[in-house]
């Protein structure tokens, strides 16, 4: 299938201290052979063409080796597939018309700025 339509709910935040929020993007023309990151590349190319800020995400090997691609997809680290990094997660595992939530990895273990009353939601 090469024309999947997706609704992407992406966490956007200008910087460490900026207030973040979810922004929803409609993306069509997604090929089911694409990896999750390639799908985001396609979205970014569209955003750049519209002179909007693309989504910044980490990646390195894109081969499932290094673990740099640290996205939380639909509430799961690296997405819902077992033993699969986000760069090796392919769009054939999603449904046409699906809404996908994409958030950054949450790691607060070393943060000393957070008071006990401000614990992040556990994922």
């Amino acid at each position: 299938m090469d024309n999947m339509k997706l609704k992407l709910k992406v966490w956007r935040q200008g910087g460490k201290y900026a207030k973040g929020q979810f922004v929803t993007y409609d993306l069509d023309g997604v090929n089911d052979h694409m990896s999750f990151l390639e799908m985001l590349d396609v979205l970014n190319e569209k955003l750049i063409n519209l002179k909007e800020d693309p989504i910044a995400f980490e990646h390195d090997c894109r081969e499932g080796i290094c673990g740099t691609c640290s996205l939380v997809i639909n509430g799961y680290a690296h997405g819902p597939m077992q033993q699969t990094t986000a760069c090796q997660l392919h769009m054939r595992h999603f449904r046409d018309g699906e809404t996908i939530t994409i958030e950054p990895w949450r790691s607060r273990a070393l943060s000393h700025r957070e008071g006990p009353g401000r614990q992040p939601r556990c994922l």
Partner: protein
Amino acid sequence: MANPCFTQIHPTCIPVSGEYQSKLTLMSESLRNDGRVWVPKKQDDAAAIREGKKTGLEIPEADRDYYLERRYPAFGNLVPRDVASRAAKTACDEGLGVSPTGLAVYLDFDAAIERYGKSRAHSLNEYNADDMRIRELGVGVIEEKYGNLFEMYEKITGEDPYVMPMKIYPAVHYTMGGLWVDYNLQTNIPGLFAIGEANFSDHGANRLGASALMQGLADGYFVLPYTIGTFLSQEIRNPKVDPEGPAFKEQEARSQARIDKIMGINGTKSAETFHRELGKIMWEYCGMARNAEGLQKGRRMIRELREEFWSNVYVPGRIKEYNPELEKALRVADFLELGELMMLDALDRNESCGGHFREEYQSEEGEALRRDDEYAYVSAWEWDDKDPILHKEELIFENVELKTRSYK
């Protein structure tokens, strides 16, 4: 930069599936220990496979061409990477490719599954095992040996390689060239040493399996610990370098100016678009097989692309934030220069040697023709925006004799 044209192409990569792809994933070469490479003998069969009307399983044995086994009977599927890669290209150029893009050959484990199945049945004393049982046992052995690779292949392609033969195609893997260093692994900038994949020093024109280990040991264990000490011993009495000094300020201003310039262009095309265009030019004109005309054309195209880049790239975001697009744009700017240098080096080297195959220099059987009399030198290039300058370093062999390899 030395020997930039020597590029290793890896024969066992997962083929192209679409324009959006960020890379062609490499699978371990160990697969060729047991996999047999083939394409259909008939163009009609290959066309039917490409159109999805047939699968590889429907091509009878007699209509398959195990071309590596045929052309290189002594080494068969285990010929070196450059030979296996070029042979795949030849097969696909003849219209025998087996994926919708026409750029793929089969890597088939069927014979290995049967062979291992029989031998396992034998060792389990199952002398009456039927075909199904033999297959089951054979698949078990293949799974033990290559399970992780088969899983990776299935993840990416969505096809089960235990059932359908794998499809592979060559892709760029490694550049034997790199930063020029002297015998002590020091670059032309005093105090800047380059070791490992970043330098050009160990591989020559080609590179064999496990050579990263060799290079890690050679550069990092046997050479650098001694040579860097020699350098530092002369520096030890020097006062600490002042980061506010003029050299630092000058370089900082230069880097800042470059960043400001690239952010200020505010054109219409993303860095990614330029990167992809550059990649296509490199693959087309400086890929597995090169010729003078193509290289000249490729160099012109890169120059035009570079001009367009510096007048029309669009880098979104701001300077003082995490901005991967800015980082990418700065890299693509470098790649545009490096790509041109690769074309130039390939053009200068009028011979076929290791990871550099020039169509004009091949034997009647299509094998690489080296020209040691004229080209036994390292090409060390000094960058110049108009015309990079070549410094030749003659290769002198004292203990070994130059030979032509043969895998027949």
